[in-house]
């Protein structure tokens, strides 16, 4: 039961892109070991800029 709730919580966070930074850190650890990752704030602002440069919403 507890596991189910945790899974649901993970799904909700992923759908809301609440976990984007953790996923970025995860990737960064693998791909660029040693280099300093962006801070949470820098990452968030950069992502917003990227996301709103193309068509991301529809009629």
């Amino acid at each position, binding site marked *: 039961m507890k596991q189910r709730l945790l899974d649901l919580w993970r*799904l*909700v*966070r*992923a*759908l*809301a*892109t*609440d976990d*984007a*930074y953790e*996923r*970025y850190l*995860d*990737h*960064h650890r693998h*791909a660029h070991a040693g280099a300093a990752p962006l*801070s*949470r*704030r820098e*990452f*968030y*602002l950069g*992502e*917003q*800029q*990227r*996301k*709103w*440069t*193309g*068509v*991301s*919403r*529809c*009629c």
Partner: protein
Amino acid sequence: MRKFLWILVALTGAFAVGGIALHRGESINAMWIVVAAICVYSIGFRFYSSWVAAKVLSTDPTRATPAIRLNNGRDFMPTHRWIVFGHHFAAIAGPGPLIGPTLAAQFGYLPGTLWILVGAVLGGCVQDMTILFLSTRRDGRSLGQMARDELGPVGGLAAIVGTLTIMIILIAVLGLVVVNAMKHSPWATATVFATIPIAVLIGLYLRNIRPGRVLEASLIGVALLLFAVVGGGWVDHHPTLRTLFDLDGKPLAWFVIAYGFVAAVLPVWLLLAPRDYLSTFLKLGTILLLAIAVVIMRPEIKMPAVTQFIDGTGPIFGGALFPFVFITIACGAISGFHALVSSGTTPKLIGSETDARLIGYGSMMLESCVAIMAMIAATLLDPGVYFAINSGPGVVGATADAAVATISSWGYPVTAEQMHALAREMGESTLFARTGGAPSLAVGMASIFSSAFGQSLLALWYHFAIMFEAVFILTTLDAGTRVGRFMLQDALGHLWKPLGQTSWYPSVLIASGLVVAGWGYFLYIGVVDPNGGINILWPLFGIANQLLAGIALCVATGILVKHGKLRYAWVTAVPLSWIAIVCTCATWEKVVSTDVRIGFLAAAEALAGKLASGALTPEQAAVAPQLIFNQRLDAALALMLTAILWIVIVDMLRVSWRVVKGLPVPPSSEAPAVALAEVRT
């Protein structure tokens, strides 16, 4: 056993579709429509989509997708298919599928419902899935780039011009819907105004207080939005405050125009991004709530299956069933705009090619389902009430008595007392001539919600529904203005380099100003037009959206032929042919029809005649030259859109012909195949 189950689904579906098609009489339960829809979607998804994925597209689960090959932890990242499904659905679902069916309900519930089901299963879903797959094979390239790479520069240019045009018209018509919903409604206006500072507050929270904590910030924001709905009610009951928010159409139009400009030039984190988080939460929550409420309430549909207005004399928009039901319901059946999203962020997240089926076909099915719910919400109203809300004063008469007399004479009895009582219940001063679809949808949603979850809160539910529609209309408006700005900057950059720099402020201001001026013009004319600008703008938007779908289907068909799939090309060529026929016929009628409610040029001539003979009042005469010019401009625009569609079709046929004849064509832009196993090691 499985086979038996699917036979059962098919039989139930056939029975339900037959039921809604053949039913004639007082009323029919909405569950017939719901069951028919679920069966049609299930069969479409289980059989047609898997056949298209396997035979036509040949999706390959062993081939590494760009998300895997180019994984950068940000935009390229393999993501679980249900999560991508959620993101993709949130991106494609906008106000279109809510408004189109509401307007098309003037033909009765049947034509719109059938088109939504058939159009989605054979057209829209196939388009979305195919473009998503093709873009995934091309590292997430955009529709415009694919058109240029695969068909040539003509197709590419047409796609870009088409996209920019649809953006301008779409934003204008959506702006008009919001303005009409707020006009002389202090409650709605105060609530919608309040959403802007709330978004800014959330933007500051997400940047400075708890950076990037999207979930908690959204929950706070949604709570504030709900509070704004209640607060709007207080404003409405306050004698001085209410006059402050009791505004005419023109100032509201200027407000929307100013908002659009400001939102396009401000940093995204301040207004656009937080507003989008709120609107996405609200959208998904409300759609879910509506689906639950429809099932709990099981409302009776009061609108007849087919009305007399299929002959083209409808009060909401002029034009006969063919081609106008197919133009009016664009989103929900087939929407070209989706091709832009399907060739944008989504292909960069797909972890396996086989996921394109669930994400592309499945999301569009859900969007189509939203359109079905909007159709139910519109047709459960008494037809007399529905026509009283949605018909402009130019059609049914300016006074309440004139309007109810006209509408009752059509065979849809309604009384002024009934309308006043309804308006009082909804907390509005009047519901006559609230054109644009949003108010009647809100009345429908409020009656569904209140009878499913408690009768007493009708006015709150009504304004919640208005706020819900306004919030995501404004999100589409500011996101669209921003995209338009980038496209224009890209184009202007070819004329003079510095104008192409997206962060150079003079260029930002000029490009944003031009885009806002473009849609602001159509919005303003729509507001001053006494016959209601929806009658003009919505068909134009429908044509533009179908044109974009046509371009997307051309790109898909061309690529299928180039890849030796000529015998399967009908999968996209059949919907393409239908779109081409519908668009061309609609444009023809909108341009040459002698009926002033259909033909742009006839309307311009009629108005010019009245102006010359002095039959207009001074106020009417003052705006007449603008309206005449606008009608002629609309005719030119419709012709241009259809011409673009045919240029791309001819270009696609030229490329296909060369393929068949073995002549050289632009090479495939597909990224080289890399096996999944190679990347993993």
